[in-house]
């Protein structure tokens, strides 16, 4: 954990260092995913966990690639990443401008690469339940109206802004102190391939309209906005890299 904090301090531009670098403890509780797979009759339990307050930046990931050159884009085995892995960087071990600038969220990273990074930091990717739980707690803390949440997400989905990403953790951290849960880039989670039925027969992409309806406990805009996030996750393969998908890490409390 100490290594993580030191690295964050070193790589961040001075303007955003210190106050924003770090991780936040998310207190657990009884909770169910907003997308219901099937009625289990008992609430799920989320244990306490720690979460990076900001997304991993290009600078962070460059440090990782330098420490673990087997994750350079010209060395990482094909089974761990598609052909566009880190393709936005001008060189395999150098950053650039725009979306390749040090303070922009790292994108074009596969699930395998994101997990390797978090493991190196002594952590892991958050589970889907943890990520969604943090998102909902942040909304609750800020008292975001469901329709405002939905409209914000719809406008982001309609224009994900990959042409020119903002820096990570720009501006004050809202609510729980977590930056950019929504509105910058989507994030990998450990179990992104949500299994919705026995075997692969039913999932978010192959399910019929009736299945889709079954997954939504309520038919309001907020649930539909959340559902779209689940659906986009279902569309990824573990070696997928895109311009709108990054990550942050989670950690188990000591």
């Amino acid at each position, binding site marked *: 954990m100490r290594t993580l904090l030191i690295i964050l301090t070193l790589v961040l531009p001075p303007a955003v260092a210190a106050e924003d670098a770090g991780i936040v403890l998310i207190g657990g509780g009884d909770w169910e995913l907003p997308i219901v797979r099937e009625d289990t009759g008992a609430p799920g339990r989320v244990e306490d966990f720690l979460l990076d307050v900001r997304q991993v930046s290009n600078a962070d990931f460059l440090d990782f690639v330098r420490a673990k050159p087997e994750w350079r884009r010209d*060395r990482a085995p*094909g089974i761990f990443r598609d052909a566009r892995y880190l393709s936005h960087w001008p060189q395999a071990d150098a950053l650039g401008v725009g979306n390749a600038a040090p303070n922009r969220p790292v994108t074009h990273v596969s699930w395998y690469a994101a997990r390797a990074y978090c493991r190196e930091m002594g952590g*892991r990717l958050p589970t889907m339940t943890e990520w969604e739980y943090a998102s909902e707690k942040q909304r609750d803390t800020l008292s975001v109206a469901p329709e405002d949440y939905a409209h914000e997400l719809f406008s982001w989905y309609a224009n994900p802004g990959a042409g020119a990403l903002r820096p990570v953790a720009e501006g004050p951290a809202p609510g729980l102190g977590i930056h950019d849960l929504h509105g910058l880039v989507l994030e990998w989670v450990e179990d992104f391939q949500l299994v919705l039925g026995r*075997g692969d027969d039913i999932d978010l992409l192959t399910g019929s309209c009736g299945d889709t309806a079954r997954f939504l406990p309520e038919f309001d805009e907020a649930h539909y906005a959340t559902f779209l996030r689940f659906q986009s996750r279902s569309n990824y393969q573990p070696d997928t890299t895109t311009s709108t998908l990054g990550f942050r890490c989670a950690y188990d409390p000591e």
Partner: protein
Amino acid sequence: MKLFTLTVMAGTLLAAVTQAATPNSGHAGHDAHAHHTPMQAETVDHGHSLFHLGADWRTQAGGPFRLEELAGRPTIITMIYGSCTTACPVLVNDARRIDRAVPEAIRDELQVVIVSFDPARDTPERLADYAADYEVDPERWQFLHGDPADIRTLAAMLGVRYRDNGDGTFDHSNVVTLLDAQGRIVERNEGLARPVEPIVEALVKLRGTRQAAGMAAW
């Protein structure tokens, strides 16, 4: 700390594999020669090998095991959990049906790996009981116990989805996969009690192609 050590080990392995693959990287530049004799495909592109996983497993006998140990011979691999009474026995039986259906000369060299995604319950001891129930050749059949993160990685590499339901059951995909001697996926059987022919034929073809090219058996 344990996780960190594993990462370092994985890194060392990956570096070694990457280095081994390097000598062929300049080959593309020879395409301009019209009468160029193609090199044998034996050492080309190991980038898609499962042997890159670099994880430490334990077998039903309790000993350490790494997937790289499967190199040199083909492997049938599937993922199950031991307390499963529905799909998993069928999956193990599907692997056994394939094992029995291949020609004897190939069967002697075929390896079978059954990986549990329930490491809390499926200890090596319990996997040993499980293996005994199936009366399979313990020399060629390995039932593997591993670290949860490595199990998740392997499942992703094999295209197997699973979810812990928290009540001792898992939802999971049913896939039996054939790996070649370099650890690359050659054929996948999705579903339960599927015909064995696609994998058996892929094995026979793999062997035949290599023999015709005058290469080593696998």
